[in-house]
């Protein structure tokens, strides 16, 4: 039984199956300022899409006769934005009591949020209005929270939406983990080491475990097995950590157990920028964090800038009460706080795609990539601009929401 589960999770992890439209469809988006992210911007560029994938990007792309023309002159064309820390679809907007991100217990690495994901949730459509085409949907909780998935924000079923499951193991090392550690950070990291060692022991001595010839393990076998892909370096580990000492603990654990790590939160990451750069650990952060707390007295608005200058892969994962649609404003505020525009755009597209191992198909406008793209009325980071049209896997998706209907009902004529 446990062996089966183990195999199943391996299969799921390596699966990266993206359903593309069955019907052949060729679309040419012409005339806009194209931001490929992978290369310099193209004025009056064309993006050619066929069967859900990008076929060509450039200023002199031959347009097939059967192509549907989408005129984008005066507009900006970017990849769909990737939100590295969203909960859109996991609950009923943010309504308390309706969340789908928590499983009771503080060590639940086998918990995967996938089955609670609602493709019709209102906040998925709202996220799209901010140009967000793809999201990393993760669990919440206290300590070893479980598995995140990556999904495109379109589709009628979870299966259609999913890109990768699991996509990451989420572990909380903020002060919230102190309780799981029996009242201290050191207790939490000690517990984590026990879990990792026991997972390896279980793998190495499965026969002994089956015959009960092994010391009691620190978690049920099914939970420990869920740690194995991470311990083999196959599954990214997202460490939620804000304080420098928590980030340092994450770096140390990653080195000790050969984990592929990402820091989420990272309020004081700027203090460890060279270490993070050397270790190749990306940081997903909210650029507006400035308020000191005992989980981050070193909060400063130019965190992203300082990290980028040190060569860290920065991912912008704006998280505010306005919802996922505000991701682009997170990027804009990073620019306001000193980051270059190109780096900020990278941080909401190719940066997260790379960190989550999706860059072969996501994150930039390049031939053969999945055709997730947004046509904006202007600079996507500006308040004056809006997403005007959006394509996910080569299909145009609606940017209308329930909010649109309320507005139209009450707007004075």
């Amino acid at each position, binding site marked *: 039984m446990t062996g089966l589960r183990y195999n199943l999770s391996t299969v799921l992890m390596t699966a990266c199956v993206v359903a593309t439209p069955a019907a052949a469809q060729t679309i040419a988006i012409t005339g806009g300022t194209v931001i490929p992210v992978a290369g310099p911007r193209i004025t009056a560029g064309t993006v050619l899409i066929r069967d859900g994938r990008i076929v060509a990007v450039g200023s002199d792309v031959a347009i097939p006769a059967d192509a549907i023309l989408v005129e984008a002159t005066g507009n900006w064309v970017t990849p769909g934005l990737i939100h590295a820390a969203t909960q859109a679809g996991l609950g009923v907007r943010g309504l308390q009591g309706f969340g789908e991100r928590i499983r009771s217990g503080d060590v639940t690495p086998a918990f995967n949020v996938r089955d609670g994901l609602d493709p019709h949730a209102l906040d998925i459509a709202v996220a799209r209005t901010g140009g967000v085409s793809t999201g990393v949907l993760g669990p919440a909780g206290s300590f070893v929270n479980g598995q995140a998935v990556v999904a495109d924000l379109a589709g009628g079923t979870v299966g259609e939406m999913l890109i990768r499951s699991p996509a990451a193991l989420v572990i909380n090392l903020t002060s919230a983990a102190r309780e799981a550690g029996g009242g201290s950070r050191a207790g939490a990291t000690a517990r984590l080491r026990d879990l990792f060692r026991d997972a390896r022991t279980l793998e190495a001595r499965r026969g002994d475990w089956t015959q009960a010839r092994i010391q009691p393990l620190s978690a049920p076998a099914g939970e420990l097995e869920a740690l194995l892909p991470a311990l083999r370096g196959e599954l990214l580990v997202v460490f939620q950590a804000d304080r420098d000492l928590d980030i340092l603990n994450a770096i140390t654990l990653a080195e000790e157990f050969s984990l592929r790590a990402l820091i989420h939160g990272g309020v004081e990451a700027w203090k460890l920028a060279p270490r993070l750069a050397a270790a190749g650990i990306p940081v997903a952060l909210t650029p507006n964090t*400035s308020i*000191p707390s005992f989980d981050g007295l*070193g*909060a400063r608005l130019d965190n992203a800038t300082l990290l980028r200058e040190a060569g860290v892969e920065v991912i912008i994962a704006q998280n505010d009460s306005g*919802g996922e649609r505000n991701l682009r404003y997170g990027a804009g505020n990073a620019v306001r706080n000193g980051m270059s525009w190109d780096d900020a755009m990278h941080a909401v597209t190719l940066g997260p795609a790379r960190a989550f191992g999706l860059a072969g198909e996501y994150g930039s406008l390049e031939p053969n990539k999945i055709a997730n793209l947004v046509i904006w009325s202007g600079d996507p*980071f500006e308040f004056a601009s809006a997403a005007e049209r959006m394509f996910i896997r080569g299909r145009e998706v609606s940017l209308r929401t329930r909010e649109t209907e309320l507005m139209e009902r009450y707007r004075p004529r």
Partner: protein
Amino acid sequence: MARWILTAWLPLVAVGCASAGGTGAGAAPPSPATAAPSARHSFERPQYPSTYQRRSFPDVLIRNATIMTAAGSELPGTSILLVEGRVVAIGADLAAPAGAMVIDGTGKFITPGLIDTHSHLGVYAAPGTQAESDGNELTNPVTAEVWAEHSVWPQDPQIPLAVAGGVTVMHVLPGSGNLIGGRSVTLRLLPARTVQELKFPGAPHGVKMACGENPKRVYASRGPSTRMGNMAGYRAAFIAAEAYRQRWDSWLANRRGDPPARDLRNETLAGVLRGEILVQNHCYRADEMAFMLDLAQEFGFTIRSFHHAIEAYKIGDLLAAHGTAASVWADWGGFKMEAFDEILENAGIVHAAGARAIIHTDSPDGIQRMNQDAAKAMFAAQRAGLSVSRNDALRWITANPAWALGIDEWTGTLEVGKMADVVVWSGDPFSIYSKAEKVFAEGYLVFDRLDPSRQFMTDFNLGQTAPGVGR
């Protein structure tokens, strides 16, 4: 003795001056109360009066900037002169007085200082410990007797961060756990040792009331546990206050014998009934706001502003008819059932209906970027085809909040005679890339992004925090 003496020293001064829509720009704000009158009774003596004093600073001439007055005009290539804490001239060609600081405003935008009608800075101070969580007196559904200012911690490190966002005045309220949560207070944002040093002279007190989910959740076991229970609770409180006011009025008419016993809860509510204390009402749903307007009518007061007012856009006409403002978020919603119907065009539709729209933050993070929230709401409204100008949107974070707090006679616009509460922006404040570069509080340079020595730190910051505003 006049009736006003019942409430407090400050409100009484304010009532005379801060009439709604006052046009007397240039009228002197009342000076801080200093000595207690030789009064027999506690109610006749000063009640925690402001000790704020204008901080001295050289005169300032900002040359060749785009001046957004929030009074109707946006003036490119214009200069503004600040003398002794006042705006004394706005024009194309102004001369600098001797000793004045001259600022090249080329490429810069100038606005009034921003005003947040809804903040909990100081009462929910950073670093966010339980020890500093002083915003909700959750011991009774009606705690009109408490004053938010008695909870404000002037060393809250969130204050300088808000200043760096161009905010010069904020309204600090008790939380929304109670039907009537207590008195709110209008404060300046400055380095200070005491709250009294921050109290905006002449600003009337507010009273925080709250509808809907919060009180009925907090008091579910003892009541109110329903919205009808909430309504019964407000009515019972004001019925008691009416009787209290009458008792005092008859005593004050002839002052014979001992005065009635003071009751702080009723003192606040009687102040509301007299129109001396402005009602600031946390209320999300349209139908509940309509009941609150009826409640106000039943007891003969007005609601100055609804706060949060997620569904204000559904009743813009009612708000306009009652003269009640709507302080709303630009884009928060969905976090609870009563916030479910949030739309980005809320402020725009309220404005289009002829009511006063205000963008507020209720957030120590949001208060750092009020200009951005106004921009979000303005562009959303314009995209929906509503007629909202840049001046209108700027008023959502300046003149309209000043009105809602009863201080519009002195601040909220850039007009000759008004207080020199001024922000110099690095660019168009409705662009995400612009920052507040310099902030003047009644003529005093309280923040300068280009000069670290002009970026004040609270005591809490010393020796342990990063420069939060970055570079």
